[in-house]
């Protein structure tokens, strides 16, 4: 057994281990937990890169916990999709942590810092767990760990965040229950919880109503957590009032992992044949996604609060990923688009939320209409915001363009022409609401009111720990925009397609 | 398992569950929730799930109820509508 095959369990186990060690060391020194978390997560990043390399060169990693064989024991399976997501999740967690260093001091009372970092680390552990596991029920446990910590982290902000947090608790619990409900039904039919095993056993009972119902339940349950359009009602408030670090992490990582569950369910537990022939859900999902894309964008146009606008924008962008997932039974490019957008949206939206936090921290501004002349006061943050916004709009040479390109081609390839129009229209709607902010930042002449000067004197300049992640993410938007255009990710994509057994490679 | 007892317990379960949601007094509601959990534990015992029953008795009927009570000591006792 290779050493690298230990790494998945090392990442998950050590994350949990670390979280509680941080809690203890918090009593010795309040600052220590942050550094411990940062160091260990950086270590995990290296490990995850090794895993990615191993997966791409050798093949999927299968790890049996406790030496129990898969149908009974819990299996960790890492194929290309997991490894890719794991790298994204860990790097976004690291950047979020660095950002939180400056931001948390501003938004959260000092005595809660240790708990805050512990919870963040626990949430990260939950997300890593979801990513590596190959067992339906184990996934539920990690899902709940990630969700429970998220509830708490949102409520940490206090004030307006509380009611949204409570709503999220209720909605999230219902979603998790639906998920586990579906899993139990599947179990009652097949008697196994392992992805691979279930994939083998399920085709015999695809006709079974229980299986189809279970599929629907799982999908709806996960969709609540991933705030697909009609189920998104808890989300805008949460993203608006949560601490900026958490908004950023939720938007960039948490929801991506939820989507990962969806993708797993579609292609690792169920198969393309099931989705296409037995329930015919593929097009329904596409239409839901299309409505989400348009509705999210239209709602975003109506918003005045920057973070709320970004939240609705996220609703719309989740539609992109769902559209990719929905199209992939018909065209492999759909999955490519979804996989690409998972990364592109993570870096883009992460950056935007971080910028929103930075702006409200330094200048105390939340309303877009007050942003006049911000480009001069906070040049770096505004430049990063602009780049990330362009990426969201889908201007070429930014990351967002490539995912749009893949998705448009997927819709053409699948002969679903309405979605081409939806995607193009959505790009224009994104333009409307993001351009408003860019206009305000750079081009609108602002009145140099006394109030503004006062604020400027009062506000300290941002610490490097906040600006650095923002700039890194903004530059990643451009770097990834070019990398996705090249054929560098092709092996990864081919691995993902073959591991999810799409039957085709590019 | 003994079916009459099983049925009886399930009936209780239904009644207690509805009652817990019905009453305006939150204290009563919480106590009824505890009762509900405890009856549920009995049902599970009937179903041969001793370990789950045990856990539910400890966690659902015990700890959760205690936590809710603790919470109730700080929020109003009566539901408004």
């Amino acid at each position, binding site marked *: 057994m290779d050493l690298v095959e230990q790494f998945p369990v090392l990442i998950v186990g050590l994350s949990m281990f670390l979280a509680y060690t941080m809690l203890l060391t918090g009593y010795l020194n309040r600052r220590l937990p942050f550094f411990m978390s940062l160091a260990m997560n950086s270590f995990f990043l290296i490990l995850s890169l090794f895993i990615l390399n191993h997966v791409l060169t050798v093949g999927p990693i299968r790890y049996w916990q406790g030496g129990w064989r898969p149908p009974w024991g819990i299996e960790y399976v890492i194929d290309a999709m997991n490894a890719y997501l794991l790298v994204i999740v860990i790097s976004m967690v690291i950047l979020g942590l660095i950002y939180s260093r400056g931001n948390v001091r501003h938004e959260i009372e000092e005595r809660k810092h240790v708990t805050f970092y512990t919870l963040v680390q626990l949430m990260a552990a939950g997300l890593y767990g979801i990513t590596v596991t190959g067992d339906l029920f184990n996934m539920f446990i990690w899902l709940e760990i990630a969700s429970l910590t998220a509830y708490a982290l949102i409520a940490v902000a206090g004030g307006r965040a509380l009611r949204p947090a409570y709503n999220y608790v209720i909605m999230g619990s219902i979603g998790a229950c639906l998920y586990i409900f579906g899993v139990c039904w599947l179990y009652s039919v097949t008697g196994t919880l392992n992805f691979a095993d279930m994939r083998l056993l399920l085709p015999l009972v695809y006709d079974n109503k229980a299986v189809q119902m279970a599929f629907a339940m799982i999908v709806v349950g996960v969709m609540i957590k991933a705030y697909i359009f009609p189920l998104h009602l808890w989300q805008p408030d949460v993203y608006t009032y949560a601490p900026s670090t958490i908004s950023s992490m939720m938007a960039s990582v948490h929801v991506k992992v939820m989507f990962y569950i969806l993708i797993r369910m579609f292609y690792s537990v169920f198969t393309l044949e099931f989705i296409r022939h037995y329930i015919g859900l593929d097009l329904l999902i596409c239409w839901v996604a299309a409505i989400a894309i348009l509705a999210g964008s239209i709602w975003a146009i109506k918003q005045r609060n920057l973070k709320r606008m970004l939240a609705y924008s996220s609703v719309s962008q989740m539609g992109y990923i769902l559209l990719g997932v929905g199209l992939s039974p018909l065209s492999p490019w759909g999955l*490519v688009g979804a996989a690409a957008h998972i990364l592109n949206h993570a870096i883009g939206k992460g950056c935007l939320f971080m910028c929103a936090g930075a702006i409200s921290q330094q200048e105390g501004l939340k309303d877009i209409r007050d942003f006049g002349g911000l480009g001069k006061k906070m040049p770096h943050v505004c430049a990063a915001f602009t780049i990330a916004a*362009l990426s969201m709009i889908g*201007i*070429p*040479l930014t990351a967002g*363009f490539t995912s*749009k*390109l*893949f998705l*448009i*081609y997927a819709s*053409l*390839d699948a002969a679903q022409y309405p979605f*081409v129009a939806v995607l*193009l*229209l959505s*790009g*224009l709607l994104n*333009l409307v609401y993001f*351009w408003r902010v860019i*206009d305000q930042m*750079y*081009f*609108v*002449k602002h009145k140099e009111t006394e109030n503004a000067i006062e604020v400027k004197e009062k506000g300290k300049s941002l610490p490097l720990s906040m600006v650095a992640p923002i700039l890194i993410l903004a530059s990643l938007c451009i770097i990834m925009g070019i990398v*996705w*255009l*090249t*054929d560098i*990710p*092709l092996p990864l*994509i081919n691995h993902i397609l073959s591991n999810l057994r799409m039957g085709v490679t*590019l | 398992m003994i079916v009459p007892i099983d049925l009886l317990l399930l009936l209780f379960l239904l009644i207690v569950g509805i009652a817990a949601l019905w009453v305006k007094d939150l204290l009563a509601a919480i106590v009824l929730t505890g009762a509900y959990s405890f009856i549920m534990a009995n049902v599970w015992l009937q179903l041969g799930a001793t370990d789950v029953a045990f856990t539910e008795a400890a966690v659902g009927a015990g700890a959760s109820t205690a936590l809710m009570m603790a919470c109730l000591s700080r929020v109003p006792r009566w539901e408004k509508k």
Partner: protein
Amino acid sequence: MELMTPLFAILCPAIAAALILPSRNHPNIREAWTIAGSVAMFLLVLSMAPLIVKGETIEFTLFQSMFKNIYIGFKVDAFGEIFAITASSLWILVSIYSIGYMRTLKEHAQTRYYFAFCFAIMGAVGVALSANLVTMFIFFEIITVSTYPLVIHEQTPEALRAGHKYLAYLMPAGAFLLFGIMITYYLAGTTDFTPGGIKALATASPMIITVLFFAFLLGFMKAAWMPFHSWLPTAMIAPSPVSALLHAVAVVKAGVFGIVRIVGYVIGMDLMQELGLWLILAGIAGFTMIVASFFAISQDNLKRRLAYSTISQLSYIILGAALLNKESIQGAMLHIPFHGYMKITLFLCAGAILVATGKTKISEMAGIGRRMPVTMLAFSVAAIGMAGIPPVCGFISKLYLCMGAWAVGSPYGMIFLAVILISSLLDIVYFFPIILTAFFKKPADEIGAIGEIKIKEAPLLVVIPLTITAIFSLVFFIYPNMFYIFDLAKMAVSQLFGGV
């Protein structure tokens, strides 16, 4: 032939932009970077011309993309080289002009201006040199985004509204273009520019080709064909050098360039002929030529009149491409640089008048020709060229266009010949009043003002570039092969029509 030159040419403005940003507090250094970048780019672009005249094609693949048969790279053929030479040579002059213009008017946010300008030019030259539609689209969008800060340079609510209008037209255009590109790739499996059209498209159904054609036509809204033209006059709120280079050359010519590319290199002449699409395109072009000229007559604002003139002239190029024969296409290709030189002269003159007198309206310009003889002389030369009167280069391209229309032969050809001639006549109608006003009309307030208003020529840095462009417009008539342009056009046509 594999050569890195196109890449270096594209990188020149990008590097200049990167250097401009840190030296924002030192205006002289900043502008030195701009000029250095422009000269370097021009030399690099020009250095490719001799090779291309010999019939070579310079290719450089940057990288293969995830799509099969789509690579991001450059392929310099004769047609692209014409546009690249035009844009890059004019950039040098406009950079010099900008320095004089911006400093005299003490404009704000000059760093942003130069920065965005570099990217806009990069986009234009990138469009010229790109090897396939995807690469072209990337540079197209770079043009759109980078010209926005230039359009709203004034930052007044009015300018912002103009900028929004600009985006509201060009961004949907980008969406249509992307749609067209994806359809092309879906149908043909490639988007490379192939002289004579992509073969695989010939087998597609006529319906889809028609849809594709209209998608591209809408996508190249930058060509300002009617009725999707109104962003162009609105965008004239930008500073004069911007109007000059971008809205007479870079942006709009990129759109026209795209249409010619589509006609000649993607859909192909045969298919255009077969499906009758050429008639639609020629009809749109002819309509635009006439109507825009009428619009121009009624404008009092000089720059707006020039804008409508631009719209009209751009359609000459579209018409040339639509008529689908050697002469017309050669005329279209020649009209790109020639019109560029003439129109930029006009815009630079308008800017010079603004700098010297602060006047923008034609009715206020009475007698200005006597105070600013050099400027108005240059203006007259360019205006004569616009109307297609020798000895200015506009005559040559229009001659070829007329020959092309004649060569079509059918009644349609005669109609379009008439359209070209009428439009030229209208050119005279709206340009000569300006010249007459400037030289022969006495200013109304001359008596009271003669002592106080000392109207002189604009600063030297402003006057020199416009003089040079005017002289070049004349030189092109005598020696059309300057910068290899005539040879390149001939080569492009022979490539298109199968090496005759």
